[in-house]
């Protein structure tokens, strides 16, 4: 009697499946459209996707889209850039210097869990009700996760490479620049993925106070009028922004981390 040996080695390895992600989106939207058209889902529960699309087209045609989007994007860019730059610098310092680590790690741990939105009134007093407080809120929210990710990444740099650098008599600055920073890059980039997403969340929070234009202000206004179509149009803009940012970081990772096995 001879049986074929059963195959047991399949599964567990990540396999790239093209198009499935988009298919899930389309399926969900089609389902919502069908539900709302047939009256199975009431108009108060969920707006019709086609109406949301209509609102979006209207927004585009009236030129209001860019009137809202451009200030939001500039707030996001300025705030997140400030937060990320300061965060990466502080994180690298914590990773390199024992005194900085001992002094700042507890402080970072203390400010990490504070909901930054709760501090918005304080920021308004400190930086004014204009752009300043919005930049500060986004920067502050981006800062903490970036610091934590960066110093963890610096800690994880292969020690044998640093020892190699020392054994060849490389200067301290050369070791930092040519071994520590490139070695920490994967960790820093995956940290940025998280902190930039947090920046988008905080953007909306920042625009809830004293902003005439901005995606956040638009959503807030629609929400208070219970205008679900406009609310959803705003939310879709944020989602697209998130997907775009994640795509940009993915591109960056593929370029900068080509050396990774």
């Amino acid at each position, binding site marked *: 009697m001879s049986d074929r040996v059963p195959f047991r080695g399949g599964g567990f390895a990540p396999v790239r499946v093209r198009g499935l992600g988009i298919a899930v989106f389309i399926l969900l939207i089609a389902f919502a459209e069908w539900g709302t058209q047939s009256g199975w889902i009431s108009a108060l529960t969920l707006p019709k996707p086609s109406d949301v699309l209509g609102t979006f087209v209207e927004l585009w045609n009236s030129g209001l889209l860019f009137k809202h989007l451009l200030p939001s994007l500039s707030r996001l860019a300025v705030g997140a850039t400030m937060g990320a730059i300061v965060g990466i610098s502080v994180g690298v310092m914590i990773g390199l210097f024992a005194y900085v680590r001992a002094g700042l790690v507890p402080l970072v741990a203390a400010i990490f869990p504070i909901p930054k939105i709760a501090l918005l009134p304080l920021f308004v007093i400190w930086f004014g009700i204009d752009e300043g407080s919005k930049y500060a809120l986004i920067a502050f929210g981006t800062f903490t996760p970036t610091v934590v990710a960066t110093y963890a990444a610096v800690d994880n740099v292969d020690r044998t*490479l640093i*020892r190699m650098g*020392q*054994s*060849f008599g*490389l*200067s301290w600055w050369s070791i930092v620049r040519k071994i520590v920073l490139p070695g920490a*890059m994967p960790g820093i980039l995956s940290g940025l993925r998280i902190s930039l997403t947090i920046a988008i969340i905080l953007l909306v929070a920042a625009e809830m106070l004293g902003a005439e234009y901005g995606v956040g202000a638009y959503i807030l206004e629609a929400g208070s009028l219970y205008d679900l179509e406009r609310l959803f149009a705003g939310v879709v803009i944020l989602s697209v922004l998130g997907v775009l940012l994640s795509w940009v970081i993915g591109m960056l990772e593929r370029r900068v981390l080509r*050396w990774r*096995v």
Partner: protein
Amino acid sequence: MDLMLNAVTHRYGETDVLRDVSLDIPSGRITCIVGPSGCGKSTLLRLLGGLEQPTEGAVLQVGSAPKGCLNALTYIFQDFALLPWRTVEGNVALVLEDHGLSNQAAIIADVLARTRLTDFAGALPKQLSGGMKQRVAIARALAVNPAVMLMDEPLSALDSQTRELLMDDLVGLWTRTPFTAVYVTHNLAEAVRLGHRIVVLSRRPGEVREIVEIETPLAERAYGDAALEAQQQHLWGLMRDEAAAADAELLNV
């Protein structure tokens, strides 16, 4: 330039790793250090290159480094220690950049040619086999024109065929331009193949048990040579009981 260990004792906390080791490393020859696992041979190498400070005794440099030497004591590591984000050429350049040399490109071209890597100058480490990675590390070490090469089990991460090929490479390099090296290994075949002098350490705390000199020129030592085989048997005789004891000791920890 010679190196000298003067009554070196080294401890980690309460544990003696090396006890009263005195040794000299003559220039132009390869000194192999063998011993059972945990006998402190890698520690000895770190002490020799100044990556660690001995608890007692001193490591001395006798004479000055040759002219044009950029890094007198240069390591070759077991795990290659190549920067994965730099190409073969970039990895060699790394150790030259700080010196601001005008002939950097020429040095790189020369060492890559000597290690037969010229065609792979633009490759990243992830594209290379283990043997090639170690050749890049050897090229990097040659680039700084070292007075003493400190080799920490350089072939232990490689398969046995690659090991044979690399040993031939090392013999070839030494025959063309003799260099000074301290070669730490647990592999006795490597020791009798590459060592002019073999230092046998006892198990922890490591002490010099015996020093064996092998007079046969490196180039004449071949794979499976009977005289070398006899030397290897002799060394194994010295180490066998110690190795067994060291193994049992680890189980008791």
